[in-house]
């Protein structure tokens, strides 16, 4: 028994040359991004922080919803839970412990939701997730009412902008590493099959419910941790803010804009969207909901596969063009007069 386990572990960390290269590039980018606060502390840092914040949320959303096609509309529920755990405990416990507790609370909620909805297929999960943030908000408000605490809570700790930025960066790196690891594990493979055809997955002996629940728990835990990290930055936590449906919506938009079938896809959506969002909220503060909805529809209708899909289409087209051009060159002998001279010129220039 011990032997195959060791072997499979070995296989899991054995990297191909291409993977080693991607990892090295990712590590370089990580270091470069980590240096941002040393260069700038003002506006640039705040934009970079927003980008990291949404990257963490959108990427963890994609971990589950990308391969399975189960659209989760409940990011705000988990995010808010994480925030509330910190807000409630900040007077009693040290902050790092609270982050751990927030992760546990998010995971616990995800287990309950997952076990209830993911055993039956598809659409029930979406419906359940649609109202989940509102449900948790109602329960929180009620609990505060019963316990007699104020509805708004202050989270005041000593933490600089730079520290917040690095915490978010570390979280994002962990999400990417876990996502990468899932992608090459049996679990990731099972999820891709589920996303393609759940019936096939069941018939090939995959425990679909278990795979879905595990991934949903991982994804939601990260959303809760993001909430825990964000709590001190917002400093005043209130149910309507913590469980805002806007957040769930933004996360879905960004992930879709980027593309959900690659781990780094959401990143390509987060960057343009964060910049666009800055523009919208600065210039049309009253119409944000309307403009957000319109942007979302444009994305769903015009770029269903996201920026990644556009890029891959463009690459494929370029390759095809190059191939057909290569074919023409090879068959140069059969071409007519003007084409022949053109080809000759081309060859001499490339020679």
């Amino acid at each position, binding site marked *: 028994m011990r032997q195959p386990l060791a072997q499979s572990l070995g296989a899991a960390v054995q990297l191909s040359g291409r993977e080693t290269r991607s990892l090295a590039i990712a590590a370089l980018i990580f270091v470069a991004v980590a240096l941002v606060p040393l260069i700038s502390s003002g506006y640039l840092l705040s934009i970079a922080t927003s980008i990291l914040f949404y990257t963490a949320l959108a990427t963890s959303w994609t971990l589950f919803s990308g391969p399975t096609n189960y659209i989760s509309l409940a990011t705000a529920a988990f995010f808010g839970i994480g925030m509330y755990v910190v807000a409630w405990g900040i007077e009693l416990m040290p902050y790092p412990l609270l982050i751990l507790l927030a992760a546990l609370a998010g995971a616990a909620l995800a287990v309950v939701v997952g076990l209830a909805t993911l055993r039956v297929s598809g659409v029930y999960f979406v*419906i359940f997730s649609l109202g989940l943030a509102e449900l948790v908000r109602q329960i929180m408000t009620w609990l505060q009412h019963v316990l007699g605490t104020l509805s708004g809570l202050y989270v005041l700790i000593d933490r600089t902008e730079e520290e917040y930025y690095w915490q978010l960066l570390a979280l994002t790196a962990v999400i990417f590493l876990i996502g990468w690891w899932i992608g090459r594990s049996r679990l990731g493979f099972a999820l891709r099959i589920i996303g393609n055809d759940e019936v096939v997955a069941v018939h090939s002996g995959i425990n679909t419910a278990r795979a879905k629940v595990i991934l949903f728990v991982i994804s939601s835990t990260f959303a809760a941790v993001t909430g825990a990290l964000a709590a001190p930055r917002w400093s005043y936590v209130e149910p309507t803010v913590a469980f805002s449906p806007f957040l769930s919506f933004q996360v879905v938009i960004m992930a879709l804009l980027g593309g959900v079938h690659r781990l780094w896809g959401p990143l390509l959506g987060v960057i343009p969207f964060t910049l666009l969002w800055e523009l919208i909220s600065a210039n049309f503060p009253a119409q944000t909901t309307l403009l957000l909805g319109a942007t979302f529809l444009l994305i*769903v209708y015009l770029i269903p596969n996201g920026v990644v899909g556009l890029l891959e289409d463009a690459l494929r087209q370029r390759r095809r063009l190059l191939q057909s051009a290569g074919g023409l060159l090879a068959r140069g002998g059969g071409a007519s007069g003007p084409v022949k001279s053109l080809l000759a010129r081309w060859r001499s220039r490339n020679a």
Partner: protein
Amino acid sequence: MDIIIIGLLLGGTYALMAMGLQLQYGVARIMNLANGEMLIAGAFGTFWFFTASQASPFYAIIGIVPFAFVVNWAIYRILIVPLVRRARSQGQLEVDCILGTFGLSFILVGILLAIFGGQYLSYSYLARPIFILGEPYGLNRVAAFLGSAALCAGLYGWLHHTRAGLSLRAVSVNPAAASLVSINVVRTSALAFALGGAVTAAGGALLSMFLTFDASLGVVFTLKALIIVILGGVSDIRGTIIAAFILGLAETTVATLVDPGLTLAAAYVLFMIILLVRPEGLFGRRSS
């Protein structure tokens, strides 16, 4: 006793909005997450009509129904049909519909915010007590219930005693087979979707008589309507009506005994029970 009567009155009013969603989801097979926003739009329209004219909100329904019908017809034609054409499978269509109507719901909220602002609205119509079995109840609740019952009965009769209603039911049972007996499925689905939207908006007009509402409340009603439709078994309109009463009772029980702020929790508890015990709903057929 209080709980039962208020619950039944509320459930009867819910029945209308749930029938609207049932037409959209059960017949046209479009998962419409913007359904609740249509309901809130109906409520806002009634509010605007009532405060402007002081005439009975029931007259507002006469205007709201055709307007919502046209709007929903346009939504189906412009937004949904391209998705139906593009979809390679039912699953793909479902995902696209969820995303498309989810975006639409935010657009509708944005439009309502732009016109009416973000504050809570309510108006006072028939706010006097009526005595049933010696206990006082709001006359507006009773009026809304009666209006809903009349509209539900009309819709039920139309579905079961006209040719158009028959073709709607045929599409609900099996779209592929319906097209074999020369029913134009796309047209019928558009009709069902538009009618569903109109019925939902009428439900909103009735609910506005006794509820306080604001632009962001739509999602709650979408959820309630969805839970009712699923509880009733998606393709069965009798199930929808019975489920609406169950939800009305459950909500009123929680609101009276625990806390009025927890109405959604009641709906979720019901939802959990359906999922765990009978995912196909009360009147649904178990898929193999």
